[in-house]
């Protein structure tokens, strides 16, 4: 059990900090946590996954782990209603991490809504490696842009788009991407956000022939690879499509290997399809 240390409303989200001890020292940008929700006699039997926003490794016992939660349904509303001091049942770190280039490159980080959360930790790592980091964050409205001051410091440029124009450029992230890619001569895109957005970003990445890693959000029952609920069709290096688990083979995947638009059907030629 991890103690909830702080719970603050930030725009439409809650920024939540947990005391997690050693976990903080092993978590990498892209990893997620799985949290039990609803309390003792909860009818919610499954954990909820949240991208790790940041960790503070302060020695084995004092490590902190931070997440950004959108109060949405029963589980997240319960979580955001918890008060500091509450013990929370949390498993972390889970999943794989964003791949970090060995050489300094020019990276573009694109986040939708709370999808910005894991990108700030990533941008710090990239910056420490000497990369240039541009960031684009988009949401339907200003309240749903999560871009804290100290996060902004780690990026070279930050562009914000909102669909209602309440802050930044009116429109979608994809409206501004081509220009930024061209201007900054981007080598790699990292993205996190709704599936539709990831798919749209991928089209642009393919057009520009840029590597694109995205963090996927599939419904997960277990988060540890045992249930096979969280799969998505991914084309391997051998050209074969396989249903891979986004909880352990992801949540970060190479966007160009994903068979997008296969929702509610198995893509033709998938291994074992019949």
């Amino acid at each position: 059990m991890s103690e909830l240390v702080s719970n603050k409303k930030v725009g439409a989200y809650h920024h939540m900090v947990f005391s997690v001890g050693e976990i903080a020292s092993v978590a990498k940008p892209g990893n997620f946590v799985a949290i039990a929700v609803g309390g003792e006699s909860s009818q919610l039997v499954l954990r909820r996954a949240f991208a790790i926003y940041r960790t503070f490794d302060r020695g084995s016992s004092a490590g902190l782990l931070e997440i950004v939660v959108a109060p949405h349904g029963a589980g997240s509303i319960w979580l955001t209603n918890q008060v500091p001091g509450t013990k929370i049942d949390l498993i972390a770190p889970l999943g794989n991490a964003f791949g970090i280039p060995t050489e300094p490159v020019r990276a573009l980080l694109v986040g939708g809504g709370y999808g910005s959360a894991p990108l700030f930790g990533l941008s710090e790592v990239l910056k420490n490696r000497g990369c240039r980091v541009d960031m684009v964050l988009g949401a339907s409205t200003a309240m749903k842009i999560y871009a804290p001051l100290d996060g902004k410091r780690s990026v070279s440029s930050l562009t914000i788009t909102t669909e209602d124009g309440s802050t930044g450029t009116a429109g979608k992230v994809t409206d501004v991407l081509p220009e930024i890619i061209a201007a900054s001569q981007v080598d790699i895109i990292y993205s996190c956000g709704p599936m539709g957005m990831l798919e749209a970003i991928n089209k642009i990445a393919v057009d520009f022939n840029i590597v694109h890693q995205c963090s996927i959000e599939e419904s997960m029952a277990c988060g540890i690879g045992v249930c096979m609920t969280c799969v998505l069709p991914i084309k391997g290096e051998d050209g074969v499509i396989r249903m891979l688990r986004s909880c352990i083979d992801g949540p970060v995947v190479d966007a160009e290997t994903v068979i997008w638009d296969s929702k509610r059907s198995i893509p033709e030629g998938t291994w074992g399809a019949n």
Partner: protein
Amino acid sequence: MFNYRTNLGQAEFENPIFTASGCAGSGKELSQFFNLTELGAVVTKSIMLKPRSGRATPRMAETPSGMLNSIGLQGPGIDQFLETDIPWLREQGATIVVSIAGESTEDYAVLARKLRAVPGLAALEVNISCPNVENRGQVFACHPATARAAIEAVRRNIGGELPIIAKLTPDVTSIVEIAQEVVAAGADAIALINTVLGMVIDTTTMRPKLAGKTGGLSGPAIRPIAVRAIYQVHEALPQVRILGMGGVSSGLDAFELILAGASAVSVGTATFGNPTAVIKIKEELKNELIEHGFDSLREAVGYAHRSEGNLI
């Protein structure tokens, strides 16, 4: 000294807590959290003849105190399974129960033949709660004749050795009738219960939430159905061992299934909420049994059936 050992047919197990088929991956994933030798047995996910992609996503929907799944038996097929999964599990020293599933009676026969020579297996769980392509996709375990045929095919081909545990669906008018049929066909034990057929409609899209429309309901919500099925089958066939499952997430839950007539208990959905649930349940059940004055697990099996006057 408390005796925690149990058996299903000829197969003996150190303790009665198993993983549930399809809820423990290949075993590897859980072995990060604990040693697989701590389990009564690892029950593998149901393996089929050929590789299977499984169903499209979404494959999962949470429900009150439960969940629906429609994985559709995704897996690598028996050949690769025997090449990689089984040797790995044997290396770990795990007690192995292999679960098989077929699309036709012949599939079951072939799977049994492929498994008869495989060393190091404790028992075979035959999942007949899956669609029979030769019979309009109707589930084998839903009809006495197809249930019997599948189990007979396994019995004939497995050789006299490996105990057969027939896994039944509760979605039938009479679970006792099906149980009697599969026992007559050569099953040594019965696994009860597979998931209950259910559906969730997404009120936003206004369509079934699962791509496969219906799915299997599991978790605490179905525990009363599992207890009932186990109780009924134990009452009708007291000599046949039962591997119980359905909504067990604590030692007390497992105790309930044991009292109803289960000789061992598989844990499925609870593992999703807590990766070490099986270990917790194993410890808790043992403590329950001891606190209730039992010297062995076996004494408690079916204890709820004793006549009214009887006190422990």
